């Protein structure tokens, strides 16, 4: 078992027993579910919206080279810089170089999962740059020195009291009664200073628009706007799969992303950035850089089976419906992307043997498939990941023996009856010896968490032979 798998199990044990955590997540998800149900009513045909968005993203991925080069050409024609990075190191090196060359001391960041993926903040901090996360949820987890809990709501696991304590400790701000309005105001004041002193703003991208070379950034707080308006340098760090063909595609994607993400009709600030400020504009960054990050995405593309995974628009809907995510929470996975999408994406890009266990941390309930706004067949991807995990030789000896025995037995009904009969007799012996539920119980994996099953006196086959034809 890989280290990551052991860690996952260790954390899962703790979180599964944590009823307070379970209640916190349940409250957040109930609120989300109600908002999304309301949001879907704004559509005459939600299913048609999903089909359309799936088609837009499928087209984008199937013609990725063409759209990316079209996008690049527009951006560079307006004085922006486009840098292609095959991996995290190349992406970080570029941003660090720009920061060094332009004497950047402070960076403000709006939310970008890709920057977490490549650990950009750490690379900048290493050269002495202060990095401020400006999305409130990201700001909170940054202060706590922990990774985001969820790709859309990073601090979903915390209560207002925990956040108040945090602000008191780290910001010296004492908010009475942990009033959320005052907490937000305290964060606003702290981050204001950062926005107005930073030399560089780093953002992600929700979409890259090929036909006009625009970078679409959606936020509710306005931190994305400030990050990309005040500092003199704007750097966009984005996965290559964020491309969409046309600006008009946003008429579907913006409402669908907002509905699946938070239940809103559209996020408050839906922005399109064309490049650095023009000569006639009173403000805005003088420099504009777009870093296109591969980091394993072309690997997903190369495999026809996994290509559809690149359609993901990072809405978080699959996390919110996943019954496993709702029990163990976002920190248990040990990955940047948790939940169903993360359980496919991580093994496929960061190592099948190390991370394949995540694809098994799923009861195959298939609820995720029904909510994905771009219709990725997540259960099929999970099953395929499991198949490839086994094909790569990642089988525990006991499991290998078990399945070999099963294959042998299932090939012939007489063998099947024999093996089953032997199993039942062995189990009856274990029970008779009082070993049920102990470490010697072969059914321990079952009885550790459940009361033991009563063994029937006869199998169905045996009953049928005696009584079936009466």
């Amino acid at each position: 078992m890989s280290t990551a798998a052991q860690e996952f199990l260790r954390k899962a044990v703790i979180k599964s027993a944590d009823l307070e955590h379970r209640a916190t997540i349940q409250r957040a998800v109930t609120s989300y579910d109600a908002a999304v149900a309301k949001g879907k009513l704004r559509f005459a045909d939600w299913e048609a919206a999903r089909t359309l968005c799936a088609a837009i993203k499928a087209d984008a991925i199937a013609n990725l080279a063409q759209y990316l080069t079209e996008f690049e050409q527009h951006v560079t024609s307006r004085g922006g810089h486009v840098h292609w990075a095959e991996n995290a190191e190349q992406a970080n090196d570029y941003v660090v170089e720009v920061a060094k060359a332009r004497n950047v001391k402070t960076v403000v960041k709006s939310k970008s999962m890709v920057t977490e993926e490549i650990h950009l903040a750490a690379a900048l901090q290493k050269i002495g740059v202060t990095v401020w996360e400006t999305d409130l949820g990201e700001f909170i987890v940054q202060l706590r020195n922990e990774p985001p809990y969820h790709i859309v709501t990073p601090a979903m696991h915390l209560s207002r009291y925990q956040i108040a304590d945090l602000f008191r400790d780290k910001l010296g701000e004492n908010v009475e009664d942990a009033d959320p309005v005052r907490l937000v105001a305290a964060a606003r004041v702290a981050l204001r200073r950062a926005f107005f002193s930073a030399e560089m703003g780093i953002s992600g991208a929700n979409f890259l628009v090929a036909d006009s070379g625009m970078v679409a950034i959606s936020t509710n707080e306005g931190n994305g706007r400030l990050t990309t308006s005040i500092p003199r340098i704007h750097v966009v760090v984005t996965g290559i799969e964020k491309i969409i063909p046309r600006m008009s595609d946003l008429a579907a994607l913006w409402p669908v992303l907002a509905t699946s993400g938070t239940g809103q009709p559209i996020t408050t600030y839906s922005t399109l950035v064309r490049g650095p400020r023009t000569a006639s504009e009173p403000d805005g960054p003088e420099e504009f850089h777009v870093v296109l990050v591969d980091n394993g995405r072309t690997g997903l593309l190369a495999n026809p089976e996994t290509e559809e995974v690149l359609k993901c628009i990072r809405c978080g809907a699959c996390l919110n419906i996943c019954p496993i995510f709702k029990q163990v929470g976002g920190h248990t996975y040990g990955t940047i992307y948790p939940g169903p999408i993360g359980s496919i994406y991580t093994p496929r890009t960061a190592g099948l043997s190390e991370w394949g266990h995540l694809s098994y941390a799923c009861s195959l309930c298939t609820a995720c498939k029904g909510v994905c706004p771009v219709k990725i067949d997540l259960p099929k991807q999970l099953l395929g990941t499991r198949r490839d995990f086994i094909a790569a030789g990642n089988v525990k000896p006991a499991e290998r023996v078990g399945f070999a025995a099963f294959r042998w037995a299932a090939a012939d009904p007489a063998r099947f009856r024999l093996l089953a009969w032997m199993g039942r007799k062995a189990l009856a012996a274990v029970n008779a010896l009082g070993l049920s539920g102990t470490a010697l119980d072969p059914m321990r994996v079952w009885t550790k968490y459940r009361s033991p099953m009563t063994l029937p006196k006869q199998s169905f086959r045996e009953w049928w032979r005696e009584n079936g034809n009466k």
Partner: protein
Amino acid sequence: MNRKVALFVPCFIDQALPQAAIDTVTVLRRVGWDVIFPEDQTCCGQPGFNTGHWETALPCAERFVRVFSDYEYIVCPSGSCTSMVRKHYPELLASSPSHDEAVAVGKRVYEFAEFLVRIAGVTDVGASFPHSVAYHPSCHATRELGIYAEPLELLRAVRDIDLRPLPNEAECCGFGGMFSTKFGMISAAMGDTKAVNIELSGAEFVTAIDPSCLMHLSGVFGATGRKSKTIYLAGVLASSSAATAGARE
């Protein structure tokens, strides 16, 4: 002359929960169908398929197709095993010579409740079950096969039954096959969440068209000292008087 139906008994029901299959036979006969049990059957291959051991699942599937190729109607007391045959055999057998036959067999395999309502055309099977019951819509059956209305129609026709809505009914109970043992702690937590909702419904029994879910929930109830009981749908439908009611799986 009665019509005939072949019984596909999932391996774990055969060995651990035979009453589910016995009650299925009882009900099918009561509504006028003759039941054949092809003894050659072993396993549909779902355990291997779901755990990534497709090389184990493939021969099971090919054998299944052979064993059941001659039957016009095949009934299975399990939503997940029915779904394996109908929805997943085409992919598993994509390169197999049995592929086309598998697709054809898939069209003739029915989950028990689906069969009663859509093929046998009955909703009232003459059952009586004077208890409060909540219906748990198991995942594969509801989402992969689209079976939701049929079990409820059958339950509503049961005399003296008190059907209770189940809060958050669509949430997985946590069984998930091998998931239940590979990630037992999460499985149990999901079962516990479901158990809380069952208690909130006020129902004495929970029923479903997947005995595996019920087997898992029964274990969770036992481990957490809950009073709720499980009963497979055919167990409810086979009941014809209060005297025969009990916690049968």
